[in-house]
């Protein structure tokens, strides 16, 4: 990618993904994205990276026996079944 311009925009991508980028910068970035396939790849794969970790993270559950031991340690066994 033409290093200078794209590199400068890189720092805005995070805010852009979060939807918190200043509207004026947002417009300029979108204009650039329309003409720069490399930056589009960076944006898409950045978003996908976040999505993948979120998906995997949400599916990572705590083992039932860990919950059981926690409740026992906290003297909350009477509420275990809920």
């Amino acid at each position, binding site marked *: *990618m033409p*290093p200078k311009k794209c*590199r400068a925009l*890189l*720092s805005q*991508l*995070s*805010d852009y*993904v*979060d939807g*918190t980028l200043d509207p004026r910068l947002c417009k300029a970035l979108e204009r650039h994205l329309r003409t720069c396939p*490399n930056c*589009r*790849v*960076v944006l*898409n*794969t*950045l978003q*996908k*990276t*976040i999505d*993948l*970790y*979120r*998906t*995997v*993270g*949400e599916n*990572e*559950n*705590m083992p039932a026996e*860990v*919950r059981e*031991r*926690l*409740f026992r*340690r*906290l003297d*909350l066994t*009477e*509420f275990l079944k*809920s």
Partner: protein
Amino acid sequence: MSEQVGSPPISLEALRNGDRKEFARLVDAYSTPIYRLALKILGDPQDAEDVLQETFIKALSALPTFEGRSSLSTWLYRIAVNEALMLLRRRKPETLLTDNDGDEDEGGESESAYLIDWCCLPEEELLSDEAQRFLDKAIAQLPENLRLVFWLRDVEGLSIKETAETLGLSETNVKTRLLRARLKLREILSEYYGERVEVRSRQNAA
């Protein structure tokens, strides 16, 4: 965040008054994300479980004096992070939470491998068992100060402000670290998935 949809919000009043049932609800609402967080910091299930238990024991005894200036979730995460880091220091005294934001690994990010669009890969390939193990390895490569910010913000869904409060950082600092963490992970993942894309296109051409 972690509170179950449809159940009434946890009452701080009841918690302060020592309501056991309410405390059990608090434990159920936050134990999973706290366990996951501790596991990400420590990388060991037994250590993560110790941190989980310590966090709620500390929370239980501190509840009467909890002023509610931050949200319950931020407060719990903060206790958990402190417990986990303390344990980490004891286990591996040589690891110090560096204050730098990873400036030293500037560069990269211009290689062609990082510019392959691998989003088109099918879900079953993006999330295969092997890929999931790779995702784990990739995040473990991040310096701790970047990993924590990424995990709290992007996986557990805390806001920038909540992440900053949990880690005792400024919001600007959180944003800087978040950007670095995201770019670094994207880079590592691009090498891995980029190869998958190439394998696929070779197969299709054959």
